[in-house]
Structures are given as C-alpha cells and as structure tokens.
C-alpha cells in the first residue's frame, strides 16, 4: 500500500502541475494513470503539435510542455503508478481515503484530486462476436511484454503506426506473425510501411490486406481467427494471440460510479476551491464543470493552485497557511 497526502487520478498536464502546487505547501502526491506514460491528451493525441497559449511560452510542443512539467514536479518526488486504471475509491473525510486500481494497487491518502481529463483512454475494439470472452485468454489490446509472444502464433490487426511497429518487432520473436489490415496501403511512417512489405515479400510475416477479422474461436483460450476479404471469402488462421491495435479513445469510465455529482460527463465543482460534493475530493482540469468553464491547460493550472490551498487547510485545519511567492521563498524539495 502506498501512503501519501494527495492521490492524483490522471497524470495529464493538470495532474502533473498539482504536484508542484501541493509540493510548495509540503504535501506529497502519488499519481495514477491508465496510460503507460504521463502527459494525458498532450502525449497521447498531439505530442508534436505546438501550443501557443501557455503564458511565457510563445510556442511550445505538447510533449516538451509535459517534459517540463515533469521536471518542475521532480523536486517534490511524486510517486507514479502508470498503466493502471483507478476503479474504486473508498473511505471518507475522517479516516482518509483508499484509491484502488484494476491491478489491485492501493493508495492511502488524505485527499483525492481527480484530474481525469476526458476520462480513461481505452482501446478501440473491433465489433467481433464473443471478443470480450477471449480478453486475457488470447486477446489483448496492448503489447506489454513482447516476450509473451515468443514462439507463438500471433495475429495483429490495424493499419496505424503501432500495428506496423509491433509487426516488425514481433516478426523476430513470434513463431508466426499475421497482420490484417482493411486497406491495401499503409500511411503510417513510410519507413515502417516499407519494412512491413519487405518482411511479407521475404515470407517473414503473413500480410493479409483488404480484409477484416470477422470471427474468433477457441475453447477457453483463443485458437483460430476467421478473416473475411472484400469478396466475402473467409480464411481461417490458427492463432495463440490476437492483438487488435486501433488506437485509444477516451471514456469517462469508472469515475461515473464514485458518487460524485456529474453533469454531461463532467464533475460539478465549487469555483472557490474546485472541491466536489464529497469533502476531501477535488476535481480539476478538463474533468470538471462550472459556469464559464474553459477546457484549457491554463485554466487547469489555476484550478490546481486553488485546489492545493484548500486541500492544505482541509488536511491541516490547525496550521496557518501564509501565502508566499516562490520568487521570495524558492522551492524546498523533499
């Protein structure tokens, strides 16, 4: 069990900046994100796009802003649990809260800050009958450990960069790699597309174009995959694993079930401190809503500062909080 002052759900820009604001007030943070990397929408959707409305930066690339936020938070030594989704929060104001992920990681804390943005980024799943029955039994949507596929027969589906990249990498590990793609050309990185066609020509992978996966079969574990081509002809291929790689899409997910007041997929908050209807739980950034809300990074940063002041008073009601500028005081790391 991790123990901390504040558990931050979501490691997007706003969650990351709240570590700094809390740190200035000597409160420790642990962040949890379902994505394998910090950065939220910036790292997941538009890492290479320039942003123009961050004060002091006439222009900054999204990933660069995240890298800098990580640097800014580093002196306060936040804990990270990445690649896990927060499923449950329990406890209350008096005894403190426990935050639990889908992998069973638990964080005990005094305050919860939900900086969940648009919600969890979840894999886009193709519509295939009984797909869910085989999840964890041959079907997965990410490649966590390529070694799992050593000497196995694996089918990848998709036409984006990750489908290309994993096809290339796994061609050297798995016994047999099949890539199924609905189109006949790849517009991912030209270099990777070229490599995939080369591997197919050399017989190192099985490339199935203009086709879709139509059915999967197995008995407790995936056994075979039915692939339908544009003439509606079906080709059955044996497989130990199927990995559909169609990118990620945000969904509000478990946040909806935590007893918070929700309006149109966003958590309603007080604008004095961005607290929710549950004392000790705050919501900042894109996930919250109030009259006049703007879904901007800048606004999320402001909300993080206001939240931290309130969280301090909430955790230490007996201590006096005197406001200080970092220019006067510097940053005292821990």
């Amino acid at each position, binding site marked *: 069990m991790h123990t901390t002052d504040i558990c931050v759900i979501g490691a997007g820009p706003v969650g990351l900046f709240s570590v700094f604001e809390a740190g200035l007030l000597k409160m420790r943070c642990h962040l949890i994100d379902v994505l394998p990397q910090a950065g939220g*929408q910036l790292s997941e*959707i*538009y890492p290479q*796009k320039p942003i123009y409305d961050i004060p002091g930066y006439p222009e900054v690339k999204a990933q660069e802003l995240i890298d800098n936020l990580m640097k800014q938070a580093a002196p306060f030594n936040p804990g990270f649990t990445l690649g896990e989704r927060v499923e449950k929060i329990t406890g209350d104001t008096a005894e403190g809260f426990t935050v639990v992920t889908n992998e069973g990681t638990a964080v005990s804390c005094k305050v919860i800050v939900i900086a969940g943005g*648009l919600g969890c980024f979840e894999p*886009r*799943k*193709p*519509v295939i009958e009984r797909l869910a029955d085989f999840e964890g039994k041959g079907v997965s949507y990410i490649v966590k450990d390529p070694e799992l596929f050593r000497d196995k027969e694996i089918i990848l*589906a*998709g*036409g*984006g960069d990750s489908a290309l990249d994993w096809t290339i990498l796994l061609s050297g590990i798995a016994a047999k790699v099949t890539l199924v*793609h*609905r*189109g006949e050309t*790849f*517009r*991912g990185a030209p270099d990777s597309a070229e490599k995939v066609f080369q591997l197919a020509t050399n017989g190192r992978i099985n490339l199935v174009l203009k086709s879709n996966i139509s059915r999967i079969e197995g008995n407790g574990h995936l056994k075979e995959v039915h692939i339908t081509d544009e003439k509606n002809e079906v080709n059955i291929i044996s497989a130990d694993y199927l990995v*559909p790689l*169609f*990118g990620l*899409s*945000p*969904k*509000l997910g478990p946040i*909806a079930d935590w007893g918070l007041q929700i309006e149109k*997929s966003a958590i309603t908050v007080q604008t004095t401190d961005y607290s929710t209807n549950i004392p000790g739980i705050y919501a900042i950034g894109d996930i919250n809503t109030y009259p006049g809300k703007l879904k901007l990074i800048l606004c999320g940063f402001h909300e993080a500062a206001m939240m931290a002041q309130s969280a301090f008073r909430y955790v230490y009601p007996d201590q006096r909080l005197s406001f200080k500028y970092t220019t006067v005081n510097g940053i005292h790391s821990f």
Partner: protein
Amino acid sequence: MLVSITIEDRNGQRQQIEVPDDMNLSLMEAMKAYEYNILATCGGMALCATCHVQVLEGKDQLSALSDAELDMLDTLPDAAANSRLACQLRIDKSLENAVFRICGQEHE
C-alpha cells in the same frame, strides 16, 4: 445559402439539417450545433477520429480525403470505404443532399 444535409444517428433515425455555407463550418461543428452525440475530442484537427461518419449518399461529390484524414481512418476498427472524418468536410454545395451516418461509440 443553406445546405441541406441528412444525418442518421446511431439508432437509425434520420433528420434533415440546414446549415449555412458562409460560416466556414465543418460537418462536425454543424452536427455539434444540432446536439448530436459526437465526442470530437481534438476539436477538428484530424487527430482523434471521434467524429467518424459514413457517407450513405453523395460520396462522389465530396472533397478528396487528405493524407491526415486517411491516416486517422486507418486507425479505426470500423472504417469502411465510405468513411470520412466529419471535421474534415467543409459545409458547402458539395454536401447538398448528402446522407451521413454517425459511427463510433456514443459517449456518456
């Protein structure tokens, strides 16, 4: 001028909408204005594919797909030959009488 477009929602219900062609709107923005349930996370930058539509009628009149749009459509499990990103279609005469079906998941 008003352009008349038919939208089919996820339940198969069709509605004709009238959209001005002089406001430089995209089909995604027009659908949002009519309160259709589409996420459009990236605000129209062809980066999220959450504004996926299929063109049921009028496909051949539409503007050509850009590489960015094709790239994004490639990442969708349910993209078909008539798939487009609504944010990449400008409202102009080419959309007159076209019929679009909203695809992808509904969001809460």
